[in-house]
């Protein structure tokens, strides 16, 4: 039961992002031969499946008005834990996967609990989580751990062939399941709507009798789970664990969420928007590869420019909505301003 597509301020940012993606893909198709191939489009998902998973978790965090800086390190820790359990301890893969996912849940729970119970800013607590998880990687090993486990090898090389010979990887299937789940939860469950309410006005959410504390903790648990899952998917991609994996990837996740139309101030955004954000991000990379002469770091410049542009656009939306809503300064930002 999808809502009617109408041009209102709620889904406009998502449509803008979709439009941008179509435009960029169109420009690529005209400029470079071979760009407009089904496989090239599907590669966007294959190459960015882990980012897609991180993005879904991050979308919930940001909609609630929070931030999670730990996801990149958590992903790295997840790659280290899986590779070490598989290669050094020789655990069964069917045991490794739940253990790794649980580790992500546990770290997320810890951060969410501290943020909620001690009323500390998510920025600082997840920054601490960033260092903690990164440090734990080096506790496991300083070196790269290659993965030779058969199950992992199969997962890495398996192809899900679609009509017309194009294919996707199992990672993409996992990522799409997470996306679907994220869309369902955000739109059709009490938990999902409470996330939006908290992002809109936490004080009001409490006064309306919503389970704010529980929901806020669960948001970080979910993000932790997504990071761990993204780590496993990442090892399907690289077949190794390395402590430096996913450096700065939390920033990529935040950037794709913002490009996807989610407001950093919370309350507004969508999982679908984040999917388009990741696709825009992926397309920029592919465009630069096809262009051939530009250094891959130009991706960063393009992303930086886009984030800047989208934030500016959101501000314009906000101010157009009129001054009436702005009269009430939420307590948090009032405190920050003084």
């Amino acid at each position: 039961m999808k809502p009617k597509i109408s041009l209102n301020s709620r889904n406009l940012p998502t449509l803008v992002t979709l439009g941008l993606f179509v435009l960029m893909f169109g420009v690529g198709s005209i400029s470079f031969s071979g760009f407009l191939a089904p496989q090239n489009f599907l590669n966007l998902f294959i190459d960015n499946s882990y980012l897609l998973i991180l993005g879904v978790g991050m979308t919930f965090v940001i909609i609630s008005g929070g931030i999670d800086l730990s996801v990149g390190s958590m992903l790295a820790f997840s790659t280290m834990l899986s590779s070490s359990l598989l290669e050094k301890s020789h655990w069964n893969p069917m045991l490794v996967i739940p253990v790794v996912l649980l580790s992500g849940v546990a770290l997320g729970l810890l951060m969410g609990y501290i943020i909620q119970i001690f009323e500390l800013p998510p920025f600082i607590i997840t920054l601490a989580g960033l260092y903690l998880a990164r440090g734990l990687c080096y506790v496991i090993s300083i070196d790269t751990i290659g993965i030779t486990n058969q199950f992992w090898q199969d997962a890495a090389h398996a192809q899900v062939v679609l009509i017309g010979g194009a294919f996707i990887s199992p990672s993409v299937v996992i990522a799409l399941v997470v996306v679907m789940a994220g869309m369902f939860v955000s739109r059709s469950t009490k938990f999902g709507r409470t996330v939006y309410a908290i992002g809109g006005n936490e004080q009001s959410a409490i006064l309306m009798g919503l389970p704010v504390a529980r929901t806020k903790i669960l948001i970080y648990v979910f993000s932790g789970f997504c990071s761990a899952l993204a780590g496993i998917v990442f090892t399907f991609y690289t077949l190794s664990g390395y402590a430096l994996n996913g450096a700065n990837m939390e920033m990529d996740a935040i950037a794709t969420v913002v490009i996807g139309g989610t407001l950093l101030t919370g309350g507004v955004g969508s999982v679908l928007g984040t999917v388009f954000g990741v696709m825009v991000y992926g397309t920029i990379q592919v465009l630069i590869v096809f262009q051939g002469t530009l250094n891959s770091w130009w991706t960063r410049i393009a992303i930086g420019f886009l984030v800047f542009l989208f934030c500016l656009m959101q501000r314009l939306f906000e101010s157009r909505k009129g001054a009436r809503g702005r009269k009430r300064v939420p307590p948090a930002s009032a405190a920050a301003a003084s």
Partner: protein
Amino acid sequence: MSGMTPIVEMKKINKFFPGVKALSGVDFRLFEGEVHALMGQNGAGKSTLVKVMTGVYKQDAGEMLLEGRPMRPDTPLAAQKLGINTVYQEVNLCLNLSVAENIFIGKEPKKLGRIDWKLMNQRAAEVLKRLNISVDVTRILSSYSVAVQQMVAIARVLDTSAKVLILDEPTSSLDETEVAQLFKVIRKLRDEGMAILFITHFLDQTYQISDRITILKNGEFIGEYETGKLPKLELIAKMLGKELSEFAYTTNPDERKKAAAEAASDSGTVLSAKALGLQGSIAPFDLSLMEGDVLGLAGLLGSGRTEMARLLFGIDYADQGEIFVKGKRVAISSPKSAMMAGLGFCSEDRKNEGIFAELSIRENIILALQAKKGVFRYLAAKKQLEIADEMIRALGIKTPNSRNEARQLSGGNQQKVLLARWLTTEPIILILDEPTRGIDVGAKLEIMELILNLSRKGLGVIFISSEFEEVLRCSTRIAVLRDKVKIAELAGENMTESGIMRTIAGGK
């Protein structure tokens, strides 16, 4: 009425806070199908009483009955479950969610484990229809006016089994047509049998909508009246705790006052405002202030006194009208520009908007002067000390040392520090919002004496106080405000307490 059992009855409620008796022996009765106004000045105990009723506070003594049976809600949620709901002045909803969601969030209709949006929107539209409102319930709440948001807040509590609806200053940010719309809804709910408790500062609205009035003063129960049988003047008198007959004798033709008025008439105008106003804050007003003049602003709480001061000092930005300082038009867009034009302002909220408790007395005094000079022209420590010591001496601030933290001072001395802060900037106009609030009687007199001394030296002062006696004692002229409108200016013989009250009660 007396034959019926009240829905809510509160008997001899006492509530203490450390050092304050917020409520003492307050009785309150609320009946089915009535709109009951709770009236009182600042600190009368209205909000404490409501908070006891809604489970935010627990009473220290007294009992509460709900339909004749004892009740003791210990949280707002528990009170809601008993059918007592509150809609606050600041709408507590989520502006980013749809109208329907704001009504149903937390109790959404579900189908197969997922939220049934279609049913939710349909039911939201039905509830709003009951309130005679038709809006697109799928649009986000921020796309509607505050009035509609209020209705949505009411609709949210209607969905549960509400018996009592408490409206805490619901009209303070609404315009006239919006108020009319809200009143229509209130009357409809009343006719359906809802008991409505209405808290407002607007006298006219009280008479428009309420059936009965309960008056509190200083945490004490003054009385319960039928609105139709309580003349407006009497209501004001009771809120202020005066007997009507007292008014006649408070006339005080002070010689000094007359002399000052005469002196003022041939000295120059230092400040004048022409049709200055801000939509939703205060209606356009004219104002002029002479050199050495003390203009008192009198009115009940919420009448627009502070709003007027905030406009003049640029804290709020006027959307119409002009301000002239010494005959020259000035654009006052911020407190800084007001300062540069020669204005000073002491806020009514001394603790939060005035004194920096952790800073020393010297630092507190020097602050405004430093701000006026700019950060790059730093005042030497020695110079700062000189200024501070001089001020401490001149104003009689009781402290052993200017290095002491401001928090160690009494309220009256903190107020003097604030005065000193502005005097160092050598203003030509000083706006004082409730400078005598919360300080003891002796300090009050001292502050007022200081104000008079300053005005004798040529300073133009705008003086705001809820105590009419203080306004009368200090002012050469008095501007009277009611319901966010400046309704009159009193001078000379008309400057009496009864004169002010009659002006306020006068109606339109």
